């Protein structure tokens, strides 16, 4: 078993000397109990593999929700330095810009009352999730190009979906520069064209919640989160378009990795120097897919507002505002220590501290909002980025609770129908077309989100602002 050295209360390290091919240490934010869970799969070995990438700076890092992935572990992040440092599509993942958007309504859970069930059912009716559901928004080729370049701002111009305020309160304004639709393959475009405005399946969802606890009142006020307010959390990504972009570029880079003189411990880490043509093409395609994902969440939010209008009225829909939207699978060029680095976040969330100029002006004093979804039936958390993230984790924090059990394992422990009854008994209205899919996402299949969040707070990466409890969930 790999020995970890404890560096401080929340940080553990495998030194670079542990393997001859490691260029930097591998470090994980955790406590002893989370480490025990982390050791049960291959995630630490995968983190060590990340530490072998050419041009990797500082350390290969992992958040406390780390679990085994392919190439990078999920919950992993690494920064590389151009021009010879590499970009690796596996360091972003197949679901490019999988992320989370939080909406806050102006009504409380008490005021919602017994209209909750009707609202959840209306959201399920309007937001396509699961098998065979068609796109909420259909785009032709030219329109798709505009969305790939411009993200939700383009969707607002084209179809009146979303608001300027939504765009302003989205990470990177919902748009990565340099998006190039010409680097997105026809197959990727075909896979994405029928999926805009759809949630997907697996651990993606639309969740109705209430603000159960405010833990940092000034921050919560900045974010517009009132006690007992009804909120809606949307978890989705770039759908088939992003999946295909990653597939295309893993294939292309894998075919060229030897030509760059790179040896890798795992083919899924296929990469190329940032200066190489295939890397520039990947960054263009990845940015396009990221913009598509932000547009996807904008389209889903539009459907949620329509549901609110139908059930609660026009004023309720108009006063439903977007708190923020964060990506947790993306690679971005960001400045650290006077250098521009390519920060790969695969299951990690940007968490910029107070004063950072990329944060919307109304949040700049509080710090960037971060959303950590719990597993189904458990709490989610709103955090605020802290200065420690810039010093310790390339401006990053965790993204969720992290799986700790396989889907089969979860299905063996609980039947979907029984889980549905348990959730309903806990006051959570469930709309999910598949009992099998429901069982696979059972709360016990995930790490304890409260433990994960506590670690990132103790590590100084982010601070808890509010706890959100689920009152309804829509899944594919």
């Amino acid at each position, binding site marked *: 078993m790999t020995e970890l050295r404890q560096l401080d209360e929340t940080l553990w390290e495998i030194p670079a000397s542990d393997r001859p091919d490691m260029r930097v240490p591998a470090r994980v934010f955790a406590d002893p109990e989370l480490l025990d869970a982390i050791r049960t799969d291959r995630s630490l070995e995968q983190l060590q593999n990340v530490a072998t990438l050419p041009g990797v700076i500082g350390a290969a890092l992992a958040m406390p929700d780390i679990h085994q992935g392919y190439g990078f572990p999920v919950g992993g992040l690494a920064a590389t330095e151009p021009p010879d440092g590499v970009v690796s599509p596996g360091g972003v993942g197949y679901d490019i810009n999988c992320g989370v958007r939080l909406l806050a309504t102006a009504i409380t859970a008490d005021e919602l009352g017994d209209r909750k069930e009707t609202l959840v059912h209306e959201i399920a009716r309007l937001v396509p999730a699961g098998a065979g559901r068609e796109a909420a928004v259909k785009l032709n080729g030219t329109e798709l190009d505009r969305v790939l370049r411009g993200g939700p701002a383009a969707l607002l111009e084209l179809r009146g979906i979303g608001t300027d305020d939504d765009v302003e309160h989205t990470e990177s304004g919902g748009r990565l520069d340099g998006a190039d639709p010409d680097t997105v393959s026809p197959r990727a475009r075909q896979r994405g064209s029928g999926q805009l405005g759809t949630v997907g399946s697996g651990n993606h969802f639309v969740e109705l919640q209430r603000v159960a606890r405010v833990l940092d009142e000034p921050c919560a006020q900045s974010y517009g989160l009132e006690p007992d307010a009804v909120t809606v959390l949307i978890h989705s990504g770039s759908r*088939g378009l992003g999946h295909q972009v990653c597939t295309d570029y893993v294939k292309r880079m894998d075919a060229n990795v030897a030509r760059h003189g790179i040896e890798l411990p795992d*083919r899924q880490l296929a990469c190329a120097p940032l200066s190489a043509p295939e890397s520039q093409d990947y960054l263009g395609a990845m940015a396009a897919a990221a913009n598509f994902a932000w547009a996807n969440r904008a389209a889903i939010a539009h459907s949620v507002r329509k549901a609110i209008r139908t059930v609660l009225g026009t004023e309720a829909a108009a006063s439903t505002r977007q708190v923020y939207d964060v990506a947790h699978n993306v690679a971005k060029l960001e400045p650290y220590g006077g250098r521009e680095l390519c920060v790969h976040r695969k299951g990690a969330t940007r968490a910029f501290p107070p004063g950072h100029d990329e944060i919307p002006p109304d949040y700049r004093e509080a710090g960037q909002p971060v959303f950590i979804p719990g597993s189904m039936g458990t709490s989610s958390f709103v955090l605020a980025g802290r200065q420690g993230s810039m010093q310790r984790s390339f401006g990053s924090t965790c993204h969720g609770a992290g799986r700790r059990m396989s889907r089969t394992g979860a299905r063996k422990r609980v039947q979907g129908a029984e889980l549905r009854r348990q959730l309903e008994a806990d006051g959570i209205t469930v709309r999910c077309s598949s009992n099998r899919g429901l069982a696979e996402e059972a709360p016990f299949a995930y790490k304890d989100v409260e433990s994960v969040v506590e670690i990132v707070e103790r590590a100084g990466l982010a601070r808890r602002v509010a706890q959100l409890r689920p009152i309804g969930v829509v899944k594919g």
Partner: protein
Amino acid sequence: MYRWVEHTGELELELEARSERGLFQEALAALGGLLSERAGDEGADASSVLHQVSASAPDRATLLAEWLSELAYLAESAGFVPDRVERLEVSGNALDATVVGHRASLPHLVKAVTYHRLGMWDEDETWRARVILDV
């Protein structure tokens, strides 16, 4: 013969056959079985559908991944569940095939076929392979 091994976030497919060609047939059977388990009734159609599938790769293991990738794409884009191979030509590191199956209402289950721990090898006169799918 095939076997699915589940990990925390992925599906590992282990294949065995008497020949390399057999591995491709087993891979189709495995994916067809997986999709059939998940298929819904809405829009299902038992009548046979044929698809032509072509792929090429730098080596046979990657060709196997590409084969599965093409079949997964047909599942997502056309609701196609593969039942059997009617014609399979594997030459060098390329293949051309006619696949028979049926339509069903399918979740978008397979995001991608990865290169993680991808392998194909001959052991004790049995061909074996391992492919990991992101689901």
